[in-house]
């Protein structure tokens, strides 16, 4: 859990920087409001720097393990306020951040809850993707970065979509089995690093924060298995040698 806490603290700090931009706009008195909880008081726009400074200080304290319980609780409350303030400031990865921070700060046995959380997130994410529209690859194609434009074809996008769907189902289950845990690490890292590099220009920071959150949840099952790094190195070797071979040919 200390490693989980450090990763979540870093994710919370990065998300705090993003929240500054979002909250500044959402709390602008000139823009339209879409409250998620109508009775939740709205801070004036000038309070945003104070709120975000508190967010960043608490995230740093949480990362360093300084008064974890108090810092984590206060951090979860600030992030929770941002989450519930307006439909425009809601995001699933912020919701996950609130839950994980709250669990680490307050739960007597956080590892069990964090493990459940991992399966719930991947399980429901996969369930939402079980539709013809996603499986056709249209969703990934729509969010693809411009440099991958030439791959935006159904023969590439549909297999990628199906693979990502199966990967999430696999990850929801595999971490619970020690035998498949190293492979789950590898699949999970591949999935999230892949998402950061190929998806949603303009949203990379948010996707990277989500990736960090999920990796933090992996650590609730124990430290990263050494075999993962051996496999990754082996894959790089194979990949590298095949490129050399192609060049030779």
């Amino acid at each position, binding site marked *: 859990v200390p490693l989980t806490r450090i990763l979540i603290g870093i994710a919370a700090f990065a998300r705090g920087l993003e929240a500054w931009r979002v909250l500044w706009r959402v709390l602008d008195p000139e823009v*339209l*409001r879409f409250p998620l909880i109508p009775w939740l008081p709205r801070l004036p726009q000038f309070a945003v720097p104070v709120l975000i400074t508190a967010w960043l200080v608490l995230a740093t304290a949480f990362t360093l393990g300084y008064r974890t319980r108090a810092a984590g609780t206060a951090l979860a409350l600030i992030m929770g306020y941002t989450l519930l303030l307006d439909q425009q400031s809601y995001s699933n990865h912020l919701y996950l951040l609130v839950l994980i921070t709250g669990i680490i700060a307050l739960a007597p046995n956080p590892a069990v809850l964090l493990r459940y959380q991992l399966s719930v997130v991947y399980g429901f994410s996969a369930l*939402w993707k079980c539709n013809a529209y996603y499986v056709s690859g249209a*969703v990934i194609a729509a969010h693809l970065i411009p440099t991958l434009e030439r791959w935006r074809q159904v023969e590439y996008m549909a297999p990628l979509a199906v693979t990502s769907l199966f990967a999430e189902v696999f990850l929801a289950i595999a971490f619970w089995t020690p035998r498949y845990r190293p492979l789950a690490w590898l699949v999970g890292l591949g999935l999230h690093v892949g998402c950061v590099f190929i998806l949603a220009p303009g949203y990379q920071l948010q996707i990277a924060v989500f990736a960090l959150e999920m990796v933090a949840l992996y650590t609730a099952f124990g430290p990263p298995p050494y075999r993962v790094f051996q496999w990754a190195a082996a894959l790089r070797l194979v990949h590298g040698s095949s490129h050399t071979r192609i060049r030779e040919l």
Partner: protein
Amino acid sequence: MLTTDRNRLTARIYLAVQIALPLGGFLKGSPYFGWRMFSEVRIPPRAVVIRDASVDTVSVNKYVGFARGDLSYGPDLAVQICRLESDAVAVRLLQLSGPAQVTKCR
């Protein structure tokens, strides 16, 4: 022993809530608290501002805090555009889901 039982009960309650909440959202099609991530195309709406002498397609970023494709803006957005664009005659909102909505400003 008592602490272990309480921890186990807490874990079960947490798991039950974490399954019930997204399941309810899934059945209702709600985008909140349900881990609905990258399962749909989310393109924010665009607005066509109709004036006496011109028609302009504009981004809604100027009128909302953070334009999102999964948010149903409804007639409030058109009213807001009419309020801020004093010379607008009408506003047509184009959203990915549903037909275009036209709101007269004056």
